[in-house]
């Protein structure tokens, strides 16, 4: 396997918050055009992983390369979707204006929107099926629609790598299916997606690859080979839960005869 097909490469990456080690000795490759679920218990470093990709965190060790370049030169290629809950959905703004934000980084302060910018926005709205909602205030959207507005903004950015922070949180079953479907279609189009995900079944269904973290790399690769029981035990049981005696509850339970 040549390096050219790996769009993101971590080499012995370490991230520390003060005395706390968030990620340790992380070496892995993300193939171009793959959709990858980032899994692990709370505090395992999922968000840290995404933030490290964005270059927001000083690395205590190692390096991250995106494409052939260092992070600082690669910002326009990355689209980041923050968690939906961090946004004030009462903000007085229409769907179209949010999607237009994806074009802002390309424009100098004095430049106005060009035809190509409007076109990119129209395309993004259309691809996510929210053209009809374009003039709606965002306060009137459902959770699934909100998520699609964010995806459209990322598309309008013209990025080829998408970093999604817990995109499935708070979506109902239909919206979850929709989003999974959208991500699958992106994979077909050769877009690279990295998403922090909590739900294993969802990860198995919607993602081709997985990265299992517990402050260090437990496993990375095709999703089914990552989410084996042995790996999950390793990520979720260690080290805190070792203290709990698994037989304690069985002993105290009483069964009707």
């Amino acid at each position, binding site marked *: 396997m040549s390096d050219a097909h790996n769009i993101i490469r971590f080499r012995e990456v370490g991230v520390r918050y003060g005395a706390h080690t968030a990620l340790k000795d992380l070496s892995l490759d993300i193939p171009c055009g793959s959709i990858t679920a980032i899994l692990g218990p709370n505090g395992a470093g999922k968000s840290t992983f995404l933030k490290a990709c964005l270059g927001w965190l000083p690395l205590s060790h190692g390096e991250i390369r995106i494409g052939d370049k260092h992070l600082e030169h690669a910002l326009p290629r990355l689209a*980041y979707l923050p968690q939906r809950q*961090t946004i004030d959905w009462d903000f007085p703004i229409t769907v179209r204006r949010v999607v237009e*934000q994806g074009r802002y980084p390309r424009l100098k302060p004095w430049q106005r929107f060009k035809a190509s910018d409007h076109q990119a926005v129209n395309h993004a709205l259309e691809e996510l099926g929210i053209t009809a909602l374009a003039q709606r205030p965002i306060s009137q959207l459902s959770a699934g629609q909100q998520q699609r507005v964010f995806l459209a903004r990322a598309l309008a950015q013209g990025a080829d790598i998408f970093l999604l922070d817990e995109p499935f949180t708070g979506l109902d079953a239909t919206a979850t299916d929709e989003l999974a479907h959208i991500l699958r279609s992106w994979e077909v189009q050769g877009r690279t997606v990295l998403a922090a995900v909590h739900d294993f079944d969802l990860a198995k269904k919607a993602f081709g690859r997985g990265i299992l973290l517990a402050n260090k790399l437990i496993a990375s690769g095709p999703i089914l080979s990552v989410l084996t029981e042995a790996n999950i035990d390793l990520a979720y049981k260690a080290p805190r839960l070792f203290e709990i005696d698994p037989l304690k509850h069985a002993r105290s339970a009483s069964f009707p005869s």
Partner: protein
Amino acid sequence: MQRGLISALLLSISGGLLGSILVLRRLSLMGDALSHSVLPGIAIAWLLCGPSPVALFIGALIAGLLTALGSAALSRLTKVKEDAAFGSLFIVFFGAGVALLSRLPVRINLENFLFGSILSVSPSDIKLSLSVSALTVVIFIIARRGILLETFDPSFHRATGGKGGFIHALLLILTVLNLVAGMQTMGVILSLGLFLLPAVTAYLWCETFLKLLLTACILALISSFAGILISYYTGIASGACIVLCLGTIFIISVIFSPKHGVLRKLIESINQHRSVNHSLD
């Protein structure tokens, strides 16, 4: 009185813009804190340079920035949260200001600082208002996208290479500048009303960002005009008149706003009760 009117109208425009952002960023109380904390800066500037508007301006700016930066530093370095840090610092600054004022050889009228005096607006005060207002508008035009992004979604702003801290500092400086420029006309504390009230009122009516900014500016202009006229004919303090005009519009909006008003909520809840009753029949 004409000079006071011009000054108030000028600051209405910048105040409406700035206030909208403060409200959306949930920094309304920070504006309040800043308005108090500029007092020692003004007192010290007076002590050093006499009543020159430029000196007072710079003194107030330094005091305001010290409060803002100081509380940011406090919250990073200790476990004190930012709101508590702000609250503590501004009241200490205000106390220091009151102490300094009482020791000044020349008496500054504290009432002037708090409530302004429309009749003492000088031509240089107008120049100050004009430049502050113009500066605010120009910065809003140049940095409009950055300000919108930083207000709506700071992490997206950062992810696309935006400088969030810079925008934040810029807004902070503009706030202090506008507060100080409004001091002569309305008093430093009431001039905050010219920022916040039009913005909160507009927030109840508007569904888009641009409309919000424009509505806030227009409300501020109307209220400044009406307030100063009322003040002129009744002799009530000008700042208070403007703020009361804004307050009246605000309360009317709270009740009658078509989407977010109390009246609508009330009608909705009555209708809901009825439908429950019907289903019981």
